[in-house]
């Protein structure tokens, strides 16, 4: 811990702390974890912070123990990535990820990003295909763990009936946030801590 305090400059640290929901210790821990994911030649402070030089490809980020068992890990990396092809994360993207998943983040921002994670086709709404894929990811990836087609259809119909208020067949961001606001468990379960 002592060596890493000398690595990130104080102004940068306080700037990150003010703009995210993370504490200083969490930012330093995140930096340490991020540096370990970089290739050996760019494992220094300057390079790790320059987004153009060092981005960690998604496959490496997915090896983190906190993300490995998550069924939405690829979507999480995709949503937070600012690269043009959405295939790598810079340090600031990584901080964004941890900030949204931290303890102190507001429910609004969590639900906003949850919506983007669940929107598999990135069209701004959750249609039937998105919901189908979501349920399949939740129940497990093997063949025998998935719901039968009739159950799946019934479930999706029930979901749409409960949450699609304007009856257009899709769930948009406001409707999603409205559903989430009725569940008090969401903020405590939508957490990843290093």
């Amino acid at each position, binding site marked *: 811990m002592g060596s890493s305090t000398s690595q990130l400059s104080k102004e940068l640290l306080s700037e990150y702390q003010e703009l995210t929901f993370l504490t200083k210790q969490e930012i330093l821990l995140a930096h340490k974890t991020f540096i370990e994911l970089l290739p050996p030649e760019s494992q220094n402070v300057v390079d790790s912070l320059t987004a153009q030089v060092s981005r960690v490809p998604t496959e490496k980020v997915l090896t983190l123990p906190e993300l490995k068992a998550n069924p939405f890990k690829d979507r999480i990396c995709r949503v937070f990535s600012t690269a043009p092809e959405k295939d790598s994360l810079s340090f600031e993207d990584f901080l964004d990820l941890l900030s949204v998943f931290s303890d102190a983040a507001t429910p609004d921002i969590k639900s906003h990003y949850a919506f983007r994670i669940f929107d598999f086709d990135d069209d701004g709404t959750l249609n039937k295909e998105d919901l189908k894929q979501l349920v399949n990811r939740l129940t*497990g990836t093997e063949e025998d763990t998935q719901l039968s087609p009739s159950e799946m259809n019934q479930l999706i119909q029930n979901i749409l009936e409960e949450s699609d208020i304007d009856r257009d067949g899709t769930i948009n*961001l406001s409707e999603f946030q409205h559903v989430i606001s009725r569940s008090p468990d969401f903020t405590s379960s939508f957490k990843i801590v290093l």
Partner: protein
Amino acid sequence: MSQSPSFILSIPEGKESPSQDLSPYDESIVHDSFHQLIQEQSQQAEVEALELQEWSSRDKGRGHQLQLEPCRAPQNYNSATLRILANMPSRTIGRSRGAIISQYYNQTVKLRRKNSRPLLRDMSSSARPSIWQNDLELDLTPREEEEKRSLLVKELQGLTVAQRDHMLRAMPLSLAEKCCLRQDSCIQRGRQKHHHRSQTQLYCCSRLQYHCIAFRSLWYGLLSGLYALKPWHYSLKQISGQFGSSVLSYFLFLKTLISFNVLLLLFLLPFIVAVQVAFPPTSEFPFSQSFTGLELFTGRGQFTHTVMFYGYYSNFTLNQPCSSHQNSDHCLPKAAHLPYNMPLAYLFTVGVSFFTTCIALVYSMSRSFGKSYQVGSTLGVHAITVFCSWDYRVTQKRAARLQHDNIRTQLKELLAEWQLKQHPRSMCGRLQQMIVLLLVWLLCLGTAVGCAIAVYSFSEFMHENQETKTQMISEKLQEVHLLALPLIVCIINLVIPYLYNAFASWEQHDSPVLEVYVAICRNLILKMVILGLLCYHWMGRKIRTLGDQCWETFVGQELYRFMVMDFIFILLDTLFGELVWRLIVERLKGDRKPEFDVARNVLELIYGQTLTWLGVLFSPLLPAIQLLKLLFLFYIKKISLMANCQAPRKPWRASHMTTIFITLLCFPSFLGAAIFLSYAIWQVRPSRTCGPFRTLDTIYEASKVWIRRLEEASPSITWFTWIHQYLVENTFFIFLISAVLLAVIYFNIQVVKGQRKVICLLKEQINNEGEDKIFLINKLHSIYESRATSN
């Protein structure tokens, strides 16, 4: 065709105001007729769209199944319609950065103008009600995005530093963009600072807000420093990673109980225990007994005459100078600085510590309630299960697989429940279910009453035994006999819940969550009935029998014995219930490891805490023992959990259950202890030979005596005695306060009912807007199709 047309519905607001005074029922009639009109129109559009669809599907050779429910949008739109759909505001807010920027620009404007939520009558009937009250913008071109961005930067400069940071933190943009926004607003702010100097007076309120926010951020900084020292942070993370949030809620509840005990000790230790230790009474009872191990279990022997129990405490003013005319035989020769009235201190400290605990409990209970019970929170279980049930804190592969299984089971159960609701049981089946339910409840209550009677008769039997056989058996054996009653009670508490589980397997509940609630209820009734009976036994029989022989110390010792026995039984239960079961399962090569039963364990914690609260008056160090017990329990339970158990299979709504646990801690547990304590303070005669209240008729008299002395000593502070006489002693004041509280509660209930009605109306409005939208889209689609065919 390149520019997307803007759809802004502008229905004049004047129409809304006359209808504001009508009752909600009239509005719904209006909406219903509107609804019918829409239905007719959309059916017409359906017919047209159907024709077009058949045509287009014939053309493109697609075989999609058509959905013929009314007001559902057909899916096969052409590309122009799809492009317009994609640019709709409700869809762009979920994906485009420009829309987010403009949304937060509007929010910032509102914050600057200190605009609270607009009144309902100011909203036009067509305004889409969303919980953010914002104006949604369309998907912006790059130039428009730049404009919006510069507007946002300008607005951000108008805010104070803390507000701006707060705003930026809550924006769902990437960190790089936030840094840019911040830099831009900083630069501009520096340049324009001297222009805004005159406007600083306008921001006086925001300055106060800034101070509040600054103080809050300092507080959070302090808290985060404390969190870094959090002793169990890593352990809790491990537990939640492997077992999920249901098991975590048990350990969090344990931490809450530890904090309550620390709160009690904060009052008791410095004001009672430390003072008495500094001024020990002259020993009237010489220490003749040697230390044997048995004292740790029974609390007698050497422990009797220590600060641990009530009997040790002095009943005079400590540290009193000799010159005063009162109680001249307990004074010190040299001049003392601070006379300390021990009886008064004892009474007030116990009273104040209970009062603080009560406030802390009610506060945490109401906060928990507020988070988990919202209006309409039980609706929409399917959506909530699918969107919110994955626990992202789970990190182990095995635990993740278990979560998958759990969620799948939960979804299947929900679907089955839903099917059942669609086809409700026949009258016969329902009657049968009710009879079985009633029978099982009668059985459980009968068992509880039977156990209570058994405990009572056993305690009477032990009591008489003690009376008659005092000469025949040794003292040691007598002490061991004292452990018999706690033993019986603990055995009952251990065995009967399994019996209840067996009874519960006969009844068929429609929802598995209800089963958990019912089981908790029954176990709690059992425990509380037994405890109530024991209290009655102590207050009645024991006082009469022991009379002046320091019955308070005896009651304190009894509670100590109960606590120790409870701890031993928890250890045994953990050992046999979890460790031995796992060994047996491994030997038999099964894979059903024992589950961690959260409800049962939490009830045991509540029971232990009730014992502590019951005994605080008679044994001021009991919270310290409870604290030690809880600390041990944390590590033992954690080790056993990691080594032996698997995560529970039943569905668990963590925050509802936490609310229920805190409520159970407050209502039967704390309230019962408070009633017992009030009875002991107000009605019971303290023993004559020991303790701080030996010369008084009731414990409460100590404060009356003090007030009388105050009156005599300094007649100028009559207001204090006046307050005491008219507010505390007079019951009229309490009636008044209760009546006012009841009125406030009734008022709040009515407000909530009104809000529910408003929510229904708003939902109806949104529904109508949706039908409008589909109607317009279908018309648009038909126009494009006709244009395509005519080209």
